[in-house]
């Protein structure tokens, strides 16, 4: 990214950010290379870094740092070493007070760019030409990987090894099994991230090119119309909710809908259903749906906090209650797929016919290619971020439970307060002392560390990170930064202007409409339950798995994200105004404040 000498009054230097009171020593949670280190100050201070609040809206727990390293290893490998995107290598990250700032590495040498262009054209061209076939293989690879994860056993440490170890062939002792299973679990995660990014850049790039083409030739076209022309009809991501709607109808048809009372917990509802034959058959039907459709996450998956619907059924049950009461009120709850299909084709046809002769062929080609790549763009979230990742976190929880059973941790969940290296170290001592019968130090060593870090994370959660640090770039030229985060030159200039404060926030107009209402600032997924009917959701970013929230709120404002971000996609699906990528909505707005959201202009006014 092109940068110039530091300008006064823009973003703070990353080296001048103060540690919030009580958070001293936060650095110990993160790898040495993740910090703004004095030894790298000469370069780091002169770069532009923006807070990746789209993926990391909360301070990172020590273990969750693996979900920064692995994705950036994977995206860099594909972008820089496989496809060789000509002007942009990969993404560097740094951590300040637990929050993640990122910056792209540009390629500036014209000869190097030309050399990379040769690779890119050939390799990206191959993917685009063979997309459907390659993507078919990708789905098989992902399903195999998910099965492999399910099959990975986290062994216990027995008092005596079973007879098979003594008398059978090829049986390992538990110390080896534990030390083998843990790195394998980590490697399966790496493999998922590798798959995750195989198609992502090209998929987003093809779609992004279509978006730019439309905006060049039809400068006033609403973003929503572009998305409508491309969006899939039979989308995997809509299946979970479609199954819930089917179950809602079934509950009514079989007369068990009375169990779904507003305010009842899933356990209370289940207990109620168990009392009748019809209720039991309904529960049996629910069981069939759960795999795979309840592998939805309660959030975008980059933190261990996000559980799946299987772990926390309150979200699907809230949806069921909503669907059943809507159906009983005579409302239509089905996604009108035929109508969506008709409208999608009509829009494509009409816009095509309004273009001049020369533009029609590339319009149609780009549209068709966008439609080809879109299943991946939409579905990889389900396979990777939801299905795989929620199960993967649970696998790590099994190691946490092992450590907790042996008093290395007070609670299995505390495993996420240790880095992945510290977990390896704790497991090493655990199996060592299990084997030797010696006195472990772990139970004295780890719990105080965990307690301190939990306190630090809590305090860091109340700190508001600036949208960017370092120097303000003259222009944002990194195509990946623009494509994946919606961070454009205009956006950065807006952030810089807003450093002084102001009562109007600007972002991307992601879903049209104008509403006023009470803001509800949601910083983490466990605050979702606080959202009241008719409030405006203000958050770092959202994911489609928050669907039930979207039926409650009347608009959305996010800190980071472009018109393709999940908040934007879901808001359009629900017909709610949305402004995304404001940079500082969660900092500037507080819960209870009245705000006006103009999703057509991309502005949020604090009233």
């Amino acid at each position, binding site marked *: 990214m092109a940068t110039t000498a530091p300008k006064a009054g823009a973003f703070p230097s990353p080296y001048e950010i103060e540690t919030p009171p009580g958070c001293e020593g936060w650095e110990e949670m993160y790898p040495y290379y993740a910090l703004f280190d004095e030894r790298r100050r000469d370069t780091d201070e002169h770069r532009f870094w923006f807070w990746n609040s789209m993926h990391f809206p909360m301070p990172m727990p020590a273990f969750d740092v693996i979900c920064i390293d692995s994705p950036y290893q994977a995206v860099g490998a594909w972008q820089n070493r496989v*496809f060789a*995107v*000509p*002007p*942009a290598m990969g993404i560097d990250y740094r951590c300040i007070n637990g929050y993640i700032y990122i910056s792209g590495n540009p390629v500036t040498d014209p000869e190097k*760019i030309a050399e*990379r*262009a040769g690779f*890119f*054209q050939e390799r*990206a*061209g191959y993917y*685009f030409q063979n997309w459907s076939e390659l993507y078919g293989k990708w789905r098989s690879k992902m399903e195999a990987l998910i099965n492999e994860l399910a099959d990975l056993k986290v062994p216990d440490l027995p008092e005596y090894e079973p007879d098979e170890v003594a008398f059978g062939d090829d049986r390992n002792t538990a110390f080896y099994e534990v030390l083998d299973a843990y790195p394998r679990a980590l490697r399966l995660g790496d493999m998922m991230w590798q798959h995750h990014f195989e198609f992502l*850049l090209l998929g987003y*790039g*093809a779609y*992004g*090119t279509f978006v*730019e*083409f439309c905006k*060049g*030739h*039809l*400068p*006033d*076209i*609403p973003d929503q*119309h572009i998305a409508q022309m491309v969006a899939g009809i039979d989308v995997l991501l809509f299946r979970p909710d479609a199954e819930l709607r089917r179950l809602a109808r079934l509950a009514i048809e079989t007369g068990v809908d009375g169990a779904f009372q507003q305010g009842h917990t899933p356990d209370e509802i289940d207990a109620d259903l168990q009392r009748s034959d019809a209720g039991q058959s309904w529960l049996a039907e629910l069981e069939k749906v759960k795999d795979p459709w309840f592998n939805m996450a309660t959030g975008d998956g980059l933190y261990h906090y996000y559980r799946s619907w299987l772990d926390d059924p309150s979200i699907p049950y809230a949806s069921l209650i909503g669907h059943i009461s809507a159906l009983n009120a005579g409302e239509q709850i089905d996604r009108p797929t035929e109508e969506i299909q008709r409208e999608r084709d*009509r*829009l494509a046809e*009409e*816009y095509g016919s*309004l*273009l*001049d002769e*020369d*533009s029609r*062929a*590339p319009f149609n*080609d*780009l549209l068709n*290619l966008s439609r080809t790549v879109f299943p991946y763009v939409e579905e990889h979230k389900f396979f990777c971020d939801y299905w795989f990742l929620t199960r993967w976190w649970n696998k790590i929880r099994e190691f946490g439970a092992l450590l907790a059973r042996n008093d290395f941790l007070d609670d299995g969940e505390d495993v996420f307060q240790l880095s992945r290296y510290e977990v390896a170290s704790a497991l090493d001592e655990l199996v060592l002392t299990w084997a030797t019968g010696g006195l472990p130090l772990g139970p004295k060593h780890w719990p105080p560390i965990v307690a301190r870090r939990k306190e630090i994370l809590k305090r860091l959660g109340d700190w508001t990170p600036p949208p960017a640090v370092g120097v303000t770039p003259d222009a944002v030229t990194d*195509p990946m930064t623009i*494509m994946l985060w919606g961070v454009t030159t205009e956006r950065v200039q807006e952030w810089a202007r807003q450093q002084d404060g102001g009562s109007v926030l600007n972002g991307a107009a992601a879903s*049209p409409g104008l509403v006023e209402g009470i803001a509800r600032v949601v910083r983490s997924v466990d605050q979702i339950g606080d959202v009241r009917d008719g409030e405006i959701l203000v958050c770092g970013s959202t994911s489609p798995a928050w669907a039930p929230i979207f039926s409650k709120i009347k608009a959305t404002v996010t800190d980071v994200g472009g018109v393709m971000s999940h908040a934007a996609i879901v808001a359009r699906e629900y017909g709610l105004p949305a402004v995304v990528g404001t940079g500082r909505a969660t900092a500037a707005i507080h819960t209870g404040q009245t705000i006006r959201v103009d999703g*057509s*202009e991309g502005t949020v006014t604090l009233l």
Partner: protein
Amino acid sequence: MTGYIRPLQRLSRSDEPTFGGKSANLGELLAADIPVPPGFALSTAAFEAFVTGSDLGQTPDDARANAMRAAPVPEAVREELTLAYTALAEAVGVADPPVAVRSSAIGEDSQEATFAGQQDTYLWVRGSENVCNAARDCWASLYSPTAIAYRARLAETGNAPAMGVTVQLMVDAEVSGVMFTCNPVSGDPSMVAVNSSWGLGLAVVGGEVTPDDFLVSKVTREVVREHIHPKDVQYVPDPGGKGAVRVAVEGDRREAPSLEQADLERLVEVARRIERYFGCHQDIEWALPRGETERVFIVQTRPVTAVAKKPDKPKPASAMSLIMSTFGAAPPKDA
């Protein structure tokens, strides 16, 4: 009737040399079933009879306008005009119906040179005597200082200037304005740009108010952008029965949107029909009658003369080369 006057619905493009662009265009619109207020047109022959009969041949250009306003309208023209006006009154069932009398110049409304605005328009004219006088004033406007200068700038060939006149039933507009069948600023062909304000069209066309500004999608009829401006003044028919008067817009209406979604949808519908009929982008004046704003009347239309071409409008390129440039991988030179 002899040849001086013809009802608008009997005119077409080929009558432009004898009836002028505005009248011919209105005839075309009627043929396309576009709602246009009824009326009739005076041919250039009426103008020529007037000039010949008034013996103005030797009057220098800059003195002509005044001389013309004092000269009598030829009896034959006057009789035909009175007949046509009476027929119009009978057709609409109103005695002395108010009409708009407008010049319909030869060469006006052509795509190359917009002559519009160089001649006068007389609104809310009632009674055949007043209509005759207004027609004469239109003719005289051909020699107004601005019209003379305009012709000089166009370096017109030696042909003597000639002019037709359009007489059209007046719509007492509750709302009126202009619309383009594209966004003239961005060049987007999928949008209709609508400007509107209260009362007769004068306020918008004459630039006396900042009109409400809407951008409406042709594809979905959604309002993509809107700016509602305070509208301080409007033109309404003079209560005395002659002409239009400028009055203040009262109270809440100043800040209120002058069009609603349903109005915009009807306007876009008509705009698309007009655009399809003419095959090119149109600049359209319209009016919604007082008390029945669900009706749309088109007062005139002409080709859009100046659409801002987007300076960075992308050059035609193949889909794959566009994707390559998204990633900063410019296509090979020979691609």
